[in-house]
């Protein structure tokens, strides 16, 4: 297999080479931006009350990350070192303005719920962090893969936290375009004479922290090498 590959493309690296796969796979697990690198936590916690918001937020961050990584990686030899933070901020801010305007135009209700957190994608450490750590030193190709990997790593934590919080907090799941789907029968609830009550604590902000803490706990007890001394 490998010899065939090297004959077909003697100089070009294949898209699914070991190195590129690592770029995509690592952020999903052992180099996860949220639970291991501790980047981009603010938004991960604030908008995970409903799955719908989390999906929209993940897509927005993914778009901004890919765009930012590609642009910065193409400009990496032109950006003077001393003012690179401001240059990066301007690039990110322009991309976020695009996202914000699109959300306002097509999904006004979600945009309302996300309120300031769309604007705060600009200061989401995950984006600046990856630009600084990766895009400034690598070609556009690998930078795109790095952006996709980290964007998905960020997304799955967001989705996991919001699914837990929404199921226990509201007894429902909401998807963009489908509205809220309740899967417990109405008569089970105490208000209708049943036995079940939603755990309202889950909707409140502090529980997001505890849920992420538990995810970190599970991840580190499965992979002992991640434990901090």
């Amino acid at each position, binding site marked *: 297999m490998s010899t065939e590959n090297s004959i077909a493309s003697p100089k070009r690296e294949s898209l699914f080479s070991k190195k590129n796969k690592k770029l995509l796979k690592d952020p999903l697990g052992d180099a996860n931006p949220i639970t291991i690198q501790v980047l981009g936590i603010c938004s991960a916690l604030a908008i995970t009350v409903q799955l719908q918001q989390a999906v929209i937020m993940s897509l927005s961050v993914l778009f901004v990350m890919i765009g930012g990584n590609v642009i910065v990686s193409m400009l990496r030899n032109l950006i003077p070192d001393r003012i690179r933070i401001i240059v990066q901020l*301007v690039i990110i801010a322009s991309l976020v303005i695009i996202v*914000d305007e699109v959300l306002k135009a097509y999904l006004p209700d979600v945009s309302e719920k996300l309120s300031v957190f769309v604007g705060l994608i600009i200061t989401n450490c995950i984006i600046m962090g990856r630009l600084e750590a990766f895009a400034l030193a690598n070609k556009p190709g690998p930078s795109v893969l790095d952006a996709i990997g980290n964007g998905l790593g960020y997304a799955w934590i967001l989705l996991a936290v919001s699914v837990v919080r929404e199921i226990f907090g509201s007894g429902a799941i909401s998807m963009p375009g489908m509205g809220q789907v309740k899967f417990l029968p109405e008569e089970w609830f105490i208000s209708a004479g049943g036995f079940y009550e939603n755990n309202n604590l889950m909707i409140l902000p502090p529980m997001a*922290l505890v849920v992420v803490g538990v995810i970190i706990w599970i991840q580190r007890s499965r992979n002992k090498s991640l434990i901090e001394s």
Partner: protein
Amino acid sequence: MEYLSIFVKGIFVENMIFAYFLGMCSYIAVSKTVKTANGLGLAVIFVLGITVPINYLLENYVLKEGALAWLDPSFSEVDLSFLSFIMFIAVIASMVQLVEMIVEKFAPALYGALGIFLPLIAVNCSILGGALFMQERQYPTIGDATVFGLGSGVGWWLAIVAIAAIREKIRYSNVPEPLRGLGITFIITGLMGIAFMSFMGIEI
């Protein structure tokens, strides 16, 4: 009295960390010792206290719909609010640069201790968050906006100093190994957030 209400609300009820999770990245990264946490917290108060009023002026005299009417009545239709993200972040980045230079000159020890985290105040969500909340809540005067900025800053400082003190002590406790460091910090912050929720609904 109104100022006091906004100030106390910013610290306790609408705390940047416990109610909105703004600035969590540096909150977790710099809260290992009380001394550095205190330095970063003070820097955040300072930067928020300066950038929120500047951004308030920018919002009300340049960006808002009809804000340019003071220049010429024909501009009263102009709405530049789509530029607000880029303008706010530019103001914040330049102010942070200024603070960095001041700290380097007058407090070199603090500069050494804060290291790379000082430039990162520019991407501390709480600073941009302060500006965006100011825009969303439409404070009537620049005094209100300044007090809001200072109050949020003090709230952030309180949160980071508190968690740093707890983390210094927790080193002597027998925390389950996979939870050590990051995990337990998250859970403690959650518990502190629940405690801070008891301030909800307080009116002064």
